[in-house]
């Protein structure tokens, strides 16, 4: 009744090609952005920001990156953790070497470096695909993490081997380091994620995104109609690594504060892959939904027993949590293999007809 396109006429190509063609959608998104930028930082507790909102946004960014590669370009990759590590370590190196450069520019430079690394590790995709490629990308995961662990230059030869975010300012406000408040870090992360989500959305709607999808659906046919698989795949790898590297940099500098290579283990790669599968392959919205799901479910599972007044030994709880997590993944794949984004779409279709479905 309230959600329908009746009466909304498009009189220009611009209006026709808008990201949100329906005014209800536009208002909803605007509402969401206002809540995210104003209401949440003012009302949310430190715990909510630090444990839920910031990781959620950072992992959304990482899953957008992986989704561009896996969901749009069809190249299965398990090297996300490695590329995130590149972003984090490069930000650390750059900002300690050149403290006067604006931290945002450092983030972007680090992203560009991880894009180059991604390009390098994307080369095998020209010969192989599918699971062979997935296993090949594991090489980047293990090699990069090992390199950051072993080569002391990357963590400035300090004895602990960890990288710690130094305090850096943006417009006179400290945004990184131990003195930065959760609210400022949240706002910075949110702003970066919004900008890059918008860029990603426009990338996949444009020529590049269409050629990715053509390669994904059938690379030989794509080649025949004039798409160069060589360039298309490599660009997909580098842009995806850019996003992942940026997410890794944000993870260390605006969320954790300090990290070791442990933080970028193979499990991280799997978590991001889960996010895009649960959220929906080939959907930017799905990346957000998937990240929300994967970040929130463990927190809910950890807190659920207390809500019901149950108490159990901590390790038993941990095991049950792992089990439930696995169960939920299998369950979701069985119920809706196309992810939460598809469920959202179905809900919207239903809503359009509601309450007179004929």
């Amino acid at each position, binding site marked *: 009744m309230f959600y329908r396109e009746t009466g909304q006429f498009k009189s220009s190509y611009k209006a026709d090609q808008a990201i949100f063609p329906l005014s209800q959608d536009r208002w909803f998104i605007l509402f969401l952005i206002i809540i995210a930028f104003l209401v949440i930082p003012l009302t949310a507790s430190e715990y909510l920001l630090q444990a839920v909102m910031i990781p959620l946004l950072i992992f959304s960014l990482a899953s957008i990156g992986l989704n561009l590669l896996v969901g749009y370009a069809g190249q299965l990759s398990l090297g996300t953790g490695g590329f995130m590590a590149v972003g984090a370590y490069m930000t650390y190196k750059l900002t300690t070497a050149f403290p006067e450069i604006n931290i945002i520019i450092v983030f972007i430079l680090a992203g560009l470096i991880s894009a180059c690394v991604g390009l390098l590790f994307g080369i095998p995709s020209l010969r192989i695909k599918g699971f*062979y490629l997935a296993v090949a990308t594991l090489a980047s995961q293990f090699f990069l993490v*090992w390199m950051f662990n*072993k080569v002391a230059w990357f963590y400035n030869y300090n004895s602990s081997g960890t990288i710690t975010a130094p305090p850096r300012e943006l417009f006179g406000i400290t945004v990184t380091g131990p003195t930065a408040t959760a609210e400022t870090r949240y706002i910075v992360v949110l702003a970066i994620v919004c900008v890059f989500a918008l860029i990603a959305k426009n990338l996949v709607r444009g020529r590049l995104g269409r050629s990715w999808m053509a390669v994904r659906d059938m690379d030989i046919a794509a080649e025949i109609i004039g798409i160069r698989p060589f360039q298309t795949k490599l660009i997909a790898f580098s842009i995806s690594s850019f996003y992942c590297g940026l997410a890794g940099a944000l993870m260390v500098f605006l969320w954790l504060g300090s990290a070791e290579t442990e933080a970028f283990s193979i499990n991280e790669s799997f978590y991001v*892959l889960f996010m895009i599968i649960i959220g929906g392959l080939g959907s930017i919205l799905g990346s957000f939904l998937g990240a929300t799901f994967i970040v929130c479910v463990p927190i809910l599972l950890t807190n659920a027993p207390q809500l019901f007044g149950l108490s159990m030994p901590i*390790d038993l709880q941990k095991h049950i949590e792992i089990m439930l997590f696995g*169960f939920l993944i*299998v369950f979701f794949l069985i119920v809706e293999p196309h992810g939460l984004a598809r469920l959202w779409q179905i809900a919207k279709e239903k809503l359009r007809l509601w309450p007179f479905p004929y």
Partner: protein
Amino acid sequence: MEIINFLNLVFLAPFVEMVSYPIFFSEVIISGLLTGVMYSLVALGFVLIFKASGVFNFAQGAMVLFAALTLVGLMEHGFPIWAALISTIIVLIALAFVVERFMLRYLINQEDIILFMATIGLTFLIQGFGETIWGSNVKPLDLGIPSESFEVGGLLLNEFDLFAAGSGAILVAVLAVFFHYTRIGRALRAVADDHQAAMAVGIPLKNIWIIVWSVAGFVGLVAGIMWGAKSGVQFSLSLIALKALPVLILGGFTSVPGAIVGGLIIGVGEKIAEIYWGPLVGGAIENWFAYVLALAFLLFRPQGLFGERIIERV
């Protein structure tokens, strides 16, 4: 001068060392081969399931540990070893049944990646289940196999390693016979060749899947016993099972002999690299060497050593 010294260290010195201490070199190779057998055993489980159902079963690593953990747990509860073995096999068959009935059956005709993700979910499920029941601390697995070392012609050999290699060989032989000469084995090969044709001639696909998962579980049990006896049973070991992936690439996803040969190559390759080149870059290159080796190999032969040729139709 620096450059020449570096080139010498990388390209010359290791080889000189290999030639000048041949006995040590052969010991390195033998220990590599024996690690390789372990990799092969884990990889074998992957290949069996991939061949018969096209599922890239990531949970094989978790199955290996689950099998070993169940065995150890039962033995700790006072089961004699044969009873524990039989009960573990029954548990694994039950697991195969549950997986088919509650997971695979609903995922027929889904894309490969969905099935792959489902098996990763299954990994968590098995891991959580195993740890809930048997706890997460390291359990030693003592089978009463002697692990003394002895010398043959100047070479130091370990009895346990030989035992592991021997049982690996027996397992492969038994599997080969099973696949070639039994009715079920023929049905499995038919399914692997073509699902629809197999169904058309009346092979019950669902039962076949249960059988394949059970066989893979059994292979996993053997691998788990070997790993467990060597380094204790714990779920954190499942990362080691990831090593089976480069083995698969090297040997080809669809080839049983490939899994064996690939495992041996990876085992030997990473031991040699670790011992002769590892110190140059600070060690621990075992972590990634196998993957890089497989990656380099893929560039020249994308289908692996013995894999079926990848043919594409437009």
